């Protein structure tokens, strides 16, 4: 018996250590860089811990003047506006559509439902060039509206699918009772279904927000200047300019991953449940 226990436990510890190192080391290394000075990161071999930790790079980004901190701050505002708007609209529209799909019968229900699901099978970049041309046609290139419309169109099918499955899992007997009480169907959705569907809504919102935050190629094409470029695009552009110090760039990178990292670490329960619904179609 002791032999078996050792046999079972040793590989697990190996796996646990691997997962920890694999996920954390690259992020740690960027944070480590961001807490050093340009001279310190030139050391060979590198400092595995910052010798004299400094927040100077963060201070420069958050309060400093000059083009680089200004661009970072403006693009941080842009990414928050775009992701928040896309998330709110996606959650709202997907909830409406999912309610109709899950609880009502109407003409064209199947066709629309499967058309929405089918768009998920296509790689996102299939529509990159036509979306650019359509937005150009309507004067929406380099506007918040254009970016948000594209994000919503991309994430709406998955969001609808997650919400649809969540609403289906709720017993309809509760609404029957509400109907008997004389509530109309929108009141039912608002007062009865949505409170019950809160975990599904949170999943949908978080996944939409994270997907929007990670976008790069779409805003690279659809945003042409700093008025709408999100943090991801600007951080990458700064990396291309060799005058920007590596430590400062690392601090900017840490800022760009801070929000999704905190969301991922704290709300992962909702992410897991939403993703598993979303992938098994």
């Amino acid at each position: 018996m002791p032999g078996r226990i050792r046999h079972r436990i040793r590989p697990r510890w190996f796996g646990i250590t691997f997962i920890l190192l694999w996920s954390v080391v690259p992020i740690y290394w960027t944070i480590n860089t961001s807490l050093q000075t340009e001279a310190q990161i030139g050391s060979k071999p590198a400092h595995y811990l910052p010798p004299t930790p400094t927040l100077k790079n963060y201070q420069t980004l958050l309060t400093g003047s000059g083009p680089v901190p200004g661009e970072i701050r403006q693009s941080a505002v842009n990414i928050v506006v775009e992701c928040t708007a896309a998330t709110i609209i996606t959650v709202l529209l997907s909830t409406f559509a999912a309610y109709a799909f899950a609880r009502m019968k109407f003409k064209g229900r199947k066709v629309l439902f499967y058309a929405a699901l089918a768009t998920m099978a296509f790689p996102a970049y299939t529509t990159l060039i036509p979306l650019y041309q359509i937005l150009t046609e309507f004067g929406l290139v380099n506007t918040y509206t254009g970016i948000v419309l594209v994000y919503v169109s991309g994430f709406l099918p998955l969001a609808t699918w997650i919400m649809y499955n969540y609403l289906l899992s709720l017993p309809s007997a509760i609404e029957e009772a509400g109907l008997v009480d004389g509530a109309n169907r929108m009141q039912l959705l608002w007062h009865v279904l949505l409170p019950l569907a809160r975990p599904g809504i949170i999943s949908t919102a978080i996944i939409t927000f994270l997907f929007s935050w990670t976008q790069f190629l779409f805003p690279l094409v659809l945003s042409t200047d700093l008025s709408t470029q999100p943090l991801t695009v600007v951080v990458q552009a700064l990396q291309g300019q060799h005058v920007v110090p590596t430590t400062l760039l690392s601090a900017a990178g840490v800022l760009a991953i801070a929000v999704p990292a905190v969301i991922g670490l704290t709300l992962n329960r909702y992410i897991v449940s939403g993703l598993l619904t979303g992938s098994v179609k």
Partner: protein
Amino acid sequence: VTGPRLAAPPAADGGVANGPREPRRRRRFDPLPYVLVSPLAIFIVGLALVPAAFTIVEAFFRVDNLDPPTRFTGLGNFRQIFSDPVLRTTTGNTLIYVLIGTVLSTVLGIAMAVTLQHRFVGRAVLIAILILPWALPGVVEGIVWTRIWDANTGLLNSVLTSLHLVDNYQVFLGEHRWLTIFLVEVVQVWQITPLSALLVLAALQNIPGDLYEAARLDGCSGRQTFWRVTLPLARPGIAVAMVQAVIATLNVFDQPYVLNGAAPTGSSVMAETYFVSFQNLNFGEGYALSLLVTIATLVLSLGVVKLVYRTVEF
């Protein structure tokens, strides 16, 4: 029943209140569901189906802002693509990306899922940490990993030197094709493996404990149990994980764009599509490339499903 109403379990259905009203409802038009789904319909048609149709049609046209007007060229764009030596290289690169990325993310995903298969203290925390790379933007991950692969100040060089495995700092990216692609793909694998692990883990948790008990009583070793019980029964999850890996790797853009730039050594087809369309402004060729990538993605995904997916019943 064609009339709009709440879908209800049979027991709650056909009550007194519903019965007599049924015929009247069938004739009356109920606008509510149409109002609820119309935004979705507009988005799907306007910003997904119409653009997809654009891609299919315009792939056969010459669409060049520098050389208007748009005109039909038949297979001209495709001929241009297949005779372009750069694109031949990037296609090869992309296939290497797909191969390395799919194999690596699947193997790692299975290993991580098996690690997490049984409950232990701190498992929830470990899952949170596992998901982390999935949640981060690919471009920023590229920047994060630049700090590891870097030729002057990178972590890998530092560790290899400290361990006396190399005498001098090495240039890892852009020198050797396979090495460059491998190192760039590791960054994408870092991003997509969490989802693979979660999908396989979900499949593993459907496997009844009795099967493991039976395998143990039959005297199976840990390794035998893995190959004969765990792996075959996790096939649905593994198939879905592989499909998402194939889609992601065939369309890889962020990581090569950041770590490799425009150099043909490690450029991908998607990166090339971007350069062709938005730097050379040759939209027609870009459309044709998008169409080819889409078709390749669908075909390869279906192939993986056919090869790997098996329905499992317990």
